[in-house]
């Protein structure tokens, strides 16, 4: 792991994957309550995507 700042003009792909792994580990360390809050937000997003998709499907079938 490097402490050098990320340079978007010049970087290796592996730096991105390392950063992802680092981020996952940071998120894993959050308190349980905070993780459940994130889950609840994700549930809301998932419901909204589902609602939008169903609404789009209805719109498309109305045109057939």
């Amino acid at each position, binding site marked *: 792991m490097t402490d050098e700042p990320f340079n978007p003009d010049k970087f290796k792909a592996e730096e991105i994957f390392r950063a992802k792994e680092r981020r996952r580990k940071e998120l894993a360390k959050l308190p349980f309550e905070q993780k459940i809050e994130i*889950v609840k937000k994700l*549930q809301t997003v998932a419901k909204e995507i589902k609602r939008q998709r169903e609404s789009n499907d209805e719109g498309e079938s109305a045109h057939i």
Partner: protein
Amino acid sequence: MEKVLELLNRMQAEGVIKNFAIGGGIATIYYLEAYSTDDIDVFISPVVVGEGGLISFGHIYRYLEKLGYPPEREYIRIDDWLVQFVPASESVQEEAVASARTVKFGGTNTFVFSAEHLAAELLRSGRRKDNERVAALLESEQMDRHLFRDIITRHGLLDKWEKFAARYELEK
């Protein structure tokens, strides 16, 4: 979610359930990063097998229905969560309940599978998403690999482990 946990504790105190522990997605989230899930798997032990080898959770469903939580198919919706009661019918599940960690959520204590038992149970279950979680748990700093090895050996999961280790290029 605290309401669900309070209700589980109340059910235990009133003898509706004896031992329980949370496994599945919510237990995984306890150890790893959060991801989207809306169900809470509550493993119940001991499993009472009735006539014809059938398991009955009728008393649990009736108890919750009286409190205003009707079933939705095999789930019960409590406080926006779909709670599923799962009989700890496999030996690894039974041990996972018996040796669950006490975890505090807000002001409420609950029981969650240990990381090692959770990984062993996910390995036993063996769906693709379960295997991915086993791999993530093994990579995490939460796991005692010796204990995990001991659990999978005692519960006859070594064959599954060898296939899993080969697929994920892990040391067997």
